[in-house]
């Protein structure tokens, strides 16, 4: 294989994909291999198909709560009722944690086994762009279903469709406090004021702000506090059905619903445009305009270029990606094609330092794993410093080396490498594995260190912590 082709193959596998596998030959046509993945990608592959939907999770929780609280023993007196409530809450928290762990494992197995690693990487990219964090209790059980239901089906579609699916998903609604935001002049607020004059109900602008700042336009792009407040008024009424309370909703718990009585009446003015649509359509019209805004094109292009090219990507590359986004009205396949056609994305120098997630997935793939063999992914990623779906902030995890290339982080990788290498198939010759994972482009220093290691385990560990493997 000529050196240019070998380089391009290694880049397609490791920079665009999730890392080479020893049992898959390097692509002869790297560009074509990436584009062909659009047809090979499965929104709901085997690993994910066994995971519960957010509605199923909410429904099961509601049933368990109902059963426990209507048990005659728990309704005998107020003490036993409080005890029963505590017990059921504790059980539900435990179950949410188990659901979270299983979803993390599904995400990893899907990344190990996928026929479309480039598209799978894009799923991870968008899930981090639209970050939710399981730090917030009610999100814990449904973070996996969020990725499965709001991200995976739309990764090859239009950005606006993904945006709407995300903002209507219970995980995002709960994470950013949308469900209880009340229009100050809505029917519900007026009735509440009549019932108990002292209790104030009103807006929560968290979701509206983060949609503008993080999900679409980007920070400092010209919107004002007034725009944020107006948008949060337009969003009132967007909520999630619940089975709790005196009057449970008719819809199954966990589904998106529009609560007309919480909606702030009247037209809204946002970024100079007036929105007089009725009900749920008002915020949908705003989202549609936000998705089409030039600032959004630039924001998304910058993040994609940062992910695939360099921490500080060249402006020309950003402009070309943004142009593809605008030209296609936010068609993501068109944007990805522009990315594949972007010469800077094929620069032979590996400018990106892998995040802990990227490193862990590429290491498991490189060592030939197709499942987790009884191991669990969630504690592994926590030890590496990047717990899955727990960035702690709605901005998601950073995508630059200075956030990840740190002394202690390197030690963690070496410790994990030792453990993974010890549990891996030792039938691979570490020297030929090094050749295979880099399509023949492995640096001589790493190749020498690997060949001189005193055991196969040490050789495999060295290979996956080598400078070559830390970057893509």
């Amino acid at each position, binding site marked *: 294989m000529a050196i240019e082709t070998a380089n391009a193959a290694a880049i397609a596998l490791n920079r665009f994909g999730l890392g080479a596998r020893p049992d898959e030959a390097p692509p002869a046509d790297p560009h074509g291999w990436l584009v062909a993945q659009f047809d090979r990608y499965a929104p709901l592959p085997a690993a994910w198909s066994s995971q519960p939907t957010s509605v199923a999770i909410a429904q099961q929780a509601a049933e368990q709560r109902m059963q426990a609280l209507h048990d005659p023993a728990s309704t005998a007196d107020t003490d036993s009722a409080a005890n029963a409530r505590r017990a059921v809450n504790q059980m539900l928290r435990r179950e949410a944690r188990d659901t979270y762990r299983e979803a993390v494992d599904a995400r990893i197995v899907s990344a190990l086994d996928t026929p479309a690693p480039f598209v799978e990487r894009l799923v991870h990219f968008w899930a981090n762009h639209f970050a939710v964090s399981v*730090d917030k209790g009610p999100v814990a059980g449904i973070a996996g279903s969020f990725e499965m239901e709001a991200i995976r089906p739309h990764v090859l579609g239009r950005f606006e469709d993904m945006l709407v699916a995300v903002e209507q998903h219970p995980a995002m609604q709960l994470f*950013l*406090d949308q469900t*209880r*935001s*009340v229009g*100050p002049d809505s029917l519900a607020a007026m009735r509440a004021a009549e019932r108990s004059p*002292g*209790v*104030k*109900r*009103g*807006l*929560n*602008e*968290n979701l509206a*702000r983060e949609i503008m*700042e993080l999900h679409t336009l980007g*920070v*400092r792009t010209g919107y004002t*506090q007034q725009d944020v407040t107006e948008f949060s008024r337009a969003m009132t009424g967007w909520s999630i059905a619940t089975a709790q309370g005196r009057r449970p909703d008719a819809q199954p718990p966990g589904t998106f619903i529009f609560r007309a009585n919480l909606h702030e009446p009247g037209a809204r003015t946002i970024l100079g445009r007036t929105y007089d649509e009725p009900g749920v359509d008002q915020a949908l019209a705003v989202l549609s305009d936000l998705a089409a805004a030039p600032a959004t094109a630039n924001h998304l292009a910058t993040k994609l270029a940062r992910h695939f090219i360099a921490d500080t990507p060249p402006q020309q590359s950003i402009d070309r990606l943004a142009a593809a986004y605008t030209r296609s009205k936010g068609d993501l396949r068109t944007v990805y094609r522009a990315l594949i056609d972007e010469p800077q994305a094929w620069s032979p120098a590996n400018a990106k*330092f892998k995040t802990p997630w990227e490193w862990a997935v590429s290491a498991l793939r490189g060592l030939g794993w197709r499942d987790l063999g009884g191991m669990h992914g969630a504690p592994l990623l926590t*030890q590496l*410093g990047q717990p899955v779906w727990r960035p*702690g*902030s709605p*901005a998601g995890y950073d995508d630059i*080396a*200075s*956030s*990840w*290339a*740190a*002394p*202690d*982080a*390197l*030690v*963690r990788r*070496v*410790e*994990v*490498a*030792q*453990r993974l290498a010890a549990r891996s198939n030792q039938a691979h010759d570490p020297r030929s594995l090094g050749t295979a994972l880099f399509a023949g482009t492995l640096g001589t*220093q*790493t190749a020498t*260190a690997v060949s001189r*290691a*005193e055991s196969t385990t*040490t050789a495999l*560990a*060295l290979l996956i*912590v*080598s*400078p070559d493997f*830390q970057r893509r």
Partner: protein
Amino acid sequence: MLSRRRFMRFAAAGAGAILVSPHIAFASVETERRFVFVIQRGAADGLHIVVPYADPAYARLRGPIAVDVAGATKLDGTFALHPSLVHTAKLYEAKQALFVHAIASPYRDRSHFDGQNVLESGGSAPYQVKDGWLNRLTQLLPPSRDSAIAFAPTIPAALRGKAEVSSYAASTLPPAPDDLLMRVTQLYDQDAQLRPLWQQAMTARGLANDAGARQDPAGIGKLAGGFLAKPNGPRIAMIETGGWDTHSAQMPRLAAQLKALDTMIASLRENLGPVWNQTTVLVATEFGRTAAVNGTNGTDHGTGTVAMLFGGAVQGGRVIADWPGLGQADLYQARDLKPTASLDAFIAGAASEGLGLDPQRTHAQLFAEANAPKPMTGLVRA
């Protein structure tokens, strides 16, 4: 098999002059002072922490989330301390704690990430300054020492920059064999990015032996105190805390948050022992929260807030505030506590006096871009 101590020496020798052994690295100490920066990520609500109970608008604005001052420590005729801050109240009584209210960085918008960037970089606008003020502060100390350690798996922005720093967080993994560590040392030797990071890591591991810290507030205080109390240990540390973004359920969430902060400070003090008298701990957040409660028993992103200073030499027992008031006309943009004190001026004063440095020179080094007023002085005794 090498012992860890011998390995450290081997690694030092193997890497040449750049990796010096911990003992020698920390020998050239010019100051006996310590400085700790605790960042509260997420915009901590100053009005909930140091409560302006005497302001007639407070109870009306806060309604269901107004702090009941019956259970709180009254600091003076205007302010009371949140009841979770038990040890903090004792420090205040001992004149080792002070608070500055209605304080803010130069940043006036309401994005966490931009606000934290301004707070940590020391610029006047987000991403204007590339390195962090704590790193620039480190450069004012003798350069031969590895003098800053971040208690987090990665380096926070305030500590990023030219001066080398090290990060440490307790690992639950079994340690890798020394043979592998040695080979990694050799493998990274030619890599300009990874070599210095790896050397820092090996040095920090040597220091952390037997620190036995757990990632709970008391454990973090113990770990930080243990490092800082060592005669040849680091002099500057940064501790990151999160969970302050209380858009809903603010009452229980801040009660727990403040209890954790209080525990951490108490444990830090205990583990510093006599060194507490030479230590200054500064606690700050990126901005405050709305003066009024929002629709979900929380508060949204705001502006002015509170900053805190602890330490044996702090001229404490007071709340510094040019109180702007909470009347509708007094609020910043009719919604937030109006800032009347500069966080940059407070940091410059506290850091310089805490470390025995010249306030003007420190101020120029830390906040050259921010056009802050002159440093606040008289905070820490010489």
